[in-house]
């Protein structure tokens, strides 16, 4: 779709019944410098959601630099949209994953080698060895999730994303429905269908 990929919540058709915002209550790291309130709120969101965003990209890309770039793009978009987010429409996890989803979609559309985890010319400074290890850790951590994603690849895109958002990103069904722009009922149907298919094909995550 052509809506601004970096502005979740612009879609008036989305459900607006999700509010699961425990992440926002996470305090800043002890010892951090006193920040202005909105910057401090952004740091809370950043610290709470960094792992979810890095994992989201680590499930899709095997190159640390690419995971770093897409994670960076996501949080740059997040800081630009931070003042306009509407937590009545989506919790902070759903809001952030919504941005990550659009960043990834935009990257796939712009990169002719889409879907192959190929590198792109990086706009970010190259990672040093320690940072590369850090990102590799996320990539390794998501190895089993990538296997699940490969099994999901045979399903429709919406079924696949329904499973990922609920089972891997840990969004509530209402939040996942909001991110996908479908009703909660439709989300439940897709989720049940996908889970049944996974079970049939041998072993569910649960």
């Amino acid at each position, binding site marked *: 779709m*052509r809506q601004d990929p970096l502005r979740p919540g612009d879609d008036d*058709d989305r*459900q607006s019944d999700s509010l699961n915002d425990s992440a926002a209550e996470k305090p800043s790291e002890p010892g951090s410098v006193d920040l202005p309130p909105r910057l401090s709120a952004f740091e809370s969101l*950043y*610290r709470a959601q960094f792992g979810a965003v890095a994992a989201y990209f680590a499930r899709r890309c095997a190159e640390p630099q690419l995971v770093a770039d897409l994670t960076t793009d996501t949080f740059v978009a997040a800081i630009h949209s931070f*003042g306009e987010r509407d937590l009545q429409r989506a919790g902070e996890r759903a809001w952030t994953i919504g941005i990550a989803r659009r960043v990834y979609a935009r990257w796939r559309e712009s990169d002719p080698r889409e879907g192959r985890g190929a590198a792109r010319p990086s706009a970010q400074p190259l990672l040093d060895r320690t940072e590369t290890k*850090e990102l590799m850790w996320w990539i390794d951590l998501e190895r089993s999730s990538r296997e699940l994603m490969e099994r999901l690849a045979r399903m429709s895109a919406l079924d696949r994303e329904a499973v990922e958002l609920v089972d891997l990103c840990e969004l509530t069904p209402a939040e996942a429905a909001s991110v996908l*722009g*479908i*009703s909660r009922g439709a989300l439940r149907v897709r989720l049940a269908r996908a889970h049944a298919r996974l079970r049939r094909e041998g072993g569910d995550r649960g």
Partner: protein
Amino acid sequence: MARFEDRLFRELVEQHGSLLTEPPAAAPVLPRRLRRRPAVAIALALAVALAAIVIGLSRGGGGTNAYAVVTNPDGTVTVTISELVGVAPADERLHELGLPVSVAAVTEDCPVERSELHRADVPPEVMSRIVETVSPAGRTGVRIDPSAIPAGDTLLLSANERRAGVIALRELLIEGSAPSCVPPGPGE
């Protein structure tokens, strides 16, 4: 704390932190928000007006709300069908807009064979860019990005009245033009 996570946060604050540190009310640089708001408000008003006009034009006769074809500001089009009587005017409206999208009712006596519908071969991710299910104002519909439809293909929306007042829309990307009706599929 992790190094990349920390470095990225520092860089975000250095390069974009001013977005969150400038007081919205008294900043000397005011204003991204203030500059943008009139534009956003105008755009919103125009969008609402346009949507109202399109909905007004699109509604079936007799004051019913049989269908809606709404052109969204981002270039997508939202189609909802709530009564079968809305199928033909919705289809007509889509053709007026010059979009490669058709709506056809599922009917038992449709002379078209389903095998005559040549499904276009596109990956699921392309299909999901073309069309997605939405629920505007509690009604089920689809939002379509016409620019994502491959040249020469048509997005066919088949409207099937499962039971009184309940219309199911199914989307099928086909090669060439769409028929005026669709025969029931398996289970329909």
